[in-house]
């Protein structure tokens, strides 16, 4: 029974990791870029929300809205400053380092907004309940549902609309899409906004489940997102969702069996193994292969 309880807890947490992973996969799958400042954007959004809460007085829903808007704004800022100027093929490293620099900046701004080490973060209250012998936290169940719905909305956006088609065409071949009239630089901006909104959702859910924010949240969420993306397959959206769920499962099980201190290490070990044995991840083999082919083209 414990096994089952742990697995369900893992899936609930995994669903928020899936959103983090999706944010990375969106950016990497379409633009082949890594945004190191992602976690810092999340931290900034959360800090802004807590800072404004006494002023606005909207309670948990205020936190929800301000967090998402804050993260999206920060994400857009990062795109303009760090990614738009380095859109050429060789700009990947430079863009990554620039985003690291902005990470430091956003971190500092966040700690100016919230000078203490921990701050309470209020969640939306949902009663907990027992489902047979399994304890279900109401807020986690709500988050699980929100995560599923946002994944579904993202899917519909990407696969059923013209904007999504343009985004996918750009992922496939940016030059051709550009020549066919897609505004590729603008699409990059949209993608960062989308990633920001997803990240903001995830940030709200994770923080309200924990009940507090610390300055370490930025680094933590960057790691979780990257790892979820890598396990599932670099750049594959479906892979990122599966990777997030796997990450949640592995973490909770490792925590339950080996103890909390081993939790992170088991995931790092897992990622390292995945990279060495199957660099394309579980789902993203195709992107890995086209990337390495493109590198080898004479």
């Amino acid at each position, binding site marked *: 029974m414990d096994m089952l309880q742990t697995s369900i807890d893992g899936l609930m947490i995994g669903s928020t990791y899936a959103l983090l992973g999706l944010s990375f996969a969106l950016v990497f799958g379409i633009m082949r870029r890594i945004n190191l400042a992602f976690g810092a954007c999340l931290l900034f959004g959360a800090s802004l929300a807590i800072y404004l809460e006494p002023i606005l007085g909207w309670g948990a829903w205020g936190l929800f809205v301000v967090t998402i808007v804050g993260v999206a704004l920060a994400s857009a800022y990062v795109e303009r400053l760090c990614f738009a100027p380095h859109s050429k093929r060789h700009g990947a490293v430079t863009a990554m380092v620039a985003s690291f620099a902005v990470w430091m900046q956003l971190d500092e701004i966040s700690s100016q907004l919230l000078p203490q080490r921990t701050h309470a973060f209020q969640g939306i209250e949902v009663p907990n309940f027992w489902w047979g012998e399994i304890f279900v936290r109401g807020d986690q169940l709500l988050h699980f549902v929100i995560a599923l719905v946002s994944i579904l909305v993202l899917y519909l956006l990407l696969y059923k*609309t013209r904007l999504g088609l343009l985004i996918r*065409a750009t992922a496939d071949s940016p030059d*051709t899409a550009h020549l066919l009239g897609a505004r590729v630089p603008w699409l990059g901006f949209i993608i960062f906004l989308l990633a920001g909104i997803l990240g903001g959702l995830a940030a709200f859910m994770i923080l309200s489940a924990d009940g507090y924010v610390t300055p370490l949240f930025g680094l933590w969420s960057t790691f979780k997102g990257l790892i979820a993306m890598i396990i599932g397959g670099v750049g594959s959206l479906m892979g990122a969702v599966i990777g997030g769920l796997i990450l949640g499962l592995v973490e909770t099980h490792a925590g339950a069996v080996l103890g909390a201190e081993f939790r992170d290490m088991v995931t790092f070990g897992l990622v390292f193994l995945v990279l060495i044995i199957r660099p394309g991840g579980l789902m993203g083999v195709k992107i890995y292969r086209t990337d390495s082919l493109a590198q080898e083209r004479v």
Partner: protein
Amino acid sequence: MLEVRNLVKHFGGVRAVDGLDFKIQQGEVFGLIGPNGSGKSTTVNLVCGVFAPTDGEILLDGIDLGAIAPHNRVDAGVARTFQNIRLFSELTVWQNLWVAWRDQPGQEQGWVSNWFGRSPARRQEIQKLLEFSGLGDKADHLAGNLAFGEQRRLELARAMASKPKLILLDEPAAGMNSAEIKDLCQRVLAMKEMGMTVLLVEHVMELVMNVTDRITVLNFGKPIAQGTPIEIQNNKLVQEAYFGSAENAHGGVS
């Protein structure tokens, strides 16, 4: 229709295009030929905006294309195919057309249907275009899985999907065998019948001589002759510069 005036393009010290003038009339198939490295592809890329010209003007219906950004040239009415096929291989055939799609001027549909793309009228039109390209039953195949000839036809259909005033065909016969070239001839002639204006850049003579109305011959970025296919074939200068030095005049099939 399309008017090119004194077009010049330098790369470093190399003059890829060096003072090119020509005019294409509405409904005409216009050929641009010349040995490799004579500046044909550069001309295509200049018209499409991949390169900015060093000097000169490109006018489409009197509008200066130079002032229009490359990604807006499709909306301005210029569509093209590519020498090396460039399809979105992860998208289906239908989606490849829908990416490039523009509604017929005067029959634009609302943003809701634009957003989702699935209005019945539009589906019918896209299907018609697929039938024309001989891809009628392959709408849901991934473009990357099509055979070489089919990919070329899909590229052609995609260029037509944006309802351009002018279609540029950049070496559409490259790598084709003679049966495929014959098929391509038929298709280009059909496009002409539908009233489209085509700029054909090619060195497979079999295609050029059969479908074009007029031809300009380039050598080292400069036009050396202009005329109907028959005039060009009998032009001494062309024979000397082109057939004397180019690898073969018989369309790659000897």
